[in-house]
């Protein structure tokens, strides 16, 4: 039991160290407003990363999520703007937009999953392809510019990102709920166990009468659903989508999953670790902005070093365990 703690402590130690560092560098770091900012902006990548944990644990990968988010945001905005004249500026129109985003996410995830499981193409290639497709589609829909939500709708929709119970805004609540359900699914549901079994040895999983293709497909559909959910919360923030929305989200999500202790080759998934990974990534950004530690040109380098360190810390402990 004690060994297990050591093995999994890496990311948490890094997170605590970052929080202490932040608090020492700037007194406003622990102010509720800043905590809300950091948690709320983590929510998009966070929800996507929870879904990504399942995909990676089952031995897959999805590079298309950032482009998919941009595309879904564009489609949802177009749908709401189109429905405005007939439905009017009310919650009905906004709920329609939300449904479009969620159904779009489910379909996009299903498309990725079906190409991977039914057409038997490598996940890397399929999602590299759909990444380009979604990104081009949103640029095309926006005519190279930016799609903006009509201002009446925007005013109405805005509280979904900025509102909530005091400092705990809706994105934070949603992220927390997604994380708890995700953790439960991975640990205690049959689906979670099947995902881990497929990731550690697909052939054995098949012999154990697991419907491998169906479970794999479901991981991509689940990820698509969570991308859709992230979009539902992203659109009210700035009310717009363009070709530069969600750039590199896929890599941030994958990085968060790996920092959190999920193996890139599959087999072991740790949803709570992913949540810690996402928070680490957001905090690095936040601390670099709050403190004038280094030239802003070097921000990317600092992030890189911390990501690698967080993983090294944890890998050293796990190899020590195995010995």
């Amino acid at each position, binding site marked *: 039991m004690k060994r297990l703690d050591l093995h999994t402590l890496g990311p948490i130690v890094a997170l605590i160290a970052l929080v202490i560092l932040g608090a020492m560098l*700037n007194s*406003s*770091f622990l*102010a509720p*407003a*800043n905590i809300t*900012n950091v948690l709320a*902006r983590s929510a998009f990548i966070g929800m996507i990363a929870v879904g990504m944990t399942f995909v990676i644990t089952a031995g897959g990968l999805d590079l298309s999520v950032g482009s998919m988010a941009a595309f879904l945001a564009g489609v949802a905005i177009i749908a709401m703007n189109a429905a405005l004249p007939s439905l009017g500026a009310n919650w009905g129109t906004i709920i329609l937009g939300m449904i479009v985003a969620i159904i779009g996410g489910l379909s996009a995830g299903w498309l990725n999953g079906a190409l991977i499981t039914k057409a038997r193409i490598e996940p890397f290639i399929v999602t590299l392809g759909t990444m380009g497709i979604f990104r081009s589609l949103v*640029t095309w829909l*926006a*005519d*190279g*510019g*930016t799609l*903006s939500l009509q201002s009446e709708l925007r005013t109405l929709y805005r509280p979904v990102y*900025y509102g909530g119970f005091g400092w705990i805004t809706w994105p934070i609540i949603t992220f927390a709920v997604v994380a708890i359900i995700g953790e439960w699914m991975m640990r205690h549901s049959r689906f979670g166990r099947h995902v881990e079994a497929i990731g550690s040895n697909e052939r054995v999983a098949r012999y154990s009468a697991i419907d491998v293709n169906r479970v794999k497909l479901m991981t991509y559909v689940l990820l698509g659903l969570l991308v859709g959910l992230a979009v539902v919360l992203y659109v009210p*923030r*700035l009310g*717009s989508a*363009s*070709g*530069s*929305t969600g*750039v590199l989200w896929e890599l941030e999500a994958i990085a968060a999953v790996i920092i959190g202790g999920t193996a890139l080759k599959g087999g072991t998934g740790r949803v709570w670790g992913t949540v810690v990974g996402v928070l680490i990534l957001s905090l690095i*950004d*936040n601390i670099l*902005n*709050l403190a*004038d530690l280094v030239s*802003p*040109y070097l*921000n990317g380098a600092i992030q890189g070093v911390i990501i690698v360190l967080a993983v090294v810390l944890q890998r050293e402990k796990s190899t020590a365990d195995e010995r």
Partner: protein
Amino acid sequence: MKRRNLMKGAALIMTLGMTVGGAVAQEAEKKIIGVSIPSATHGFMGGLNWHAQDTIARLGKAYPNLEFVLATAGDAAKQVNDIEDMMATRNIDGLVVLPFESEPLTAPVKAVKDAGKFVTVVDRGLSEDGIEDLYVAGDNTAFGRVAGEYFKGNLAAGSKIVVLRGIPTTLDNERVEAFQKALEGSDVEILDMQHGNWNRDDAFTVMQDYLSKYPKIDAVWAADDDMAIGVLEAISAANRNDEMWVIGGAGMKEIVKRIMDGDKQLPVNVTYPPALISSAIEMTALNFVSKAPMTGRFIIGSQLITPENAEQFYYPDSPF
């Protein structure tokens, strides 16, 4: 509306492609101008693409003896291929090019010039002097200076401002240096300068952190209208709308509209017009249809958009 314009542009290119071969043979006077620009990957380039298509459609009608070939490229290598194709298959007489990057495009454009064609280079210079006949560009130094002078003239002594920078490039450095130089001698303090990468989401995040870090901010130089949108949203989420004003840049239509309407938070804007591609195409066309001299350097100044003159900078149909 926007979509239809795009379709029109695409249809135009296709018909051009189909008619070029026959038309050249029939009419000796026919001149063909190639236009090669980066594809619409962000707001400013989207605007530039729209203006290019719009200008080509208009000039094609005005001057029946001119043909245009438009190609957009997502990277420098594709742009080199486009230009080589234009030379090999379209037999162009003139080339208007906005180089994706200076270095890789220098040799191919030089080859076009060496073949005796009229070459117009737009906005980003080539790495070798004296290749182009005509150079049309915006003025990055003036872009920073005009904004800096507005801050200097409209802020009380002891005021504090924050700056959002673009993607780290020489272009961004020129703007920021000119801005700082214009502020010299005033008592305005720049609290911080971080990169928002000309991106709404990044600018939103950086501004949120500025707001946590500094209890007193009197004004923000967002330096770009996409960044200004993110900045305004962050300020409004922190309920500090009345404390500071924001200056963007480049003249995005939504921002120009708000200046027209007299928004207190957005007093002015500084132009860096994507329509500079129109100037380049028009001048190249004039070279072929008139005797007016069209060689040299044409630098488009950055102007201050104020509520009084905003209307002349407002293009409601443009995507930017």
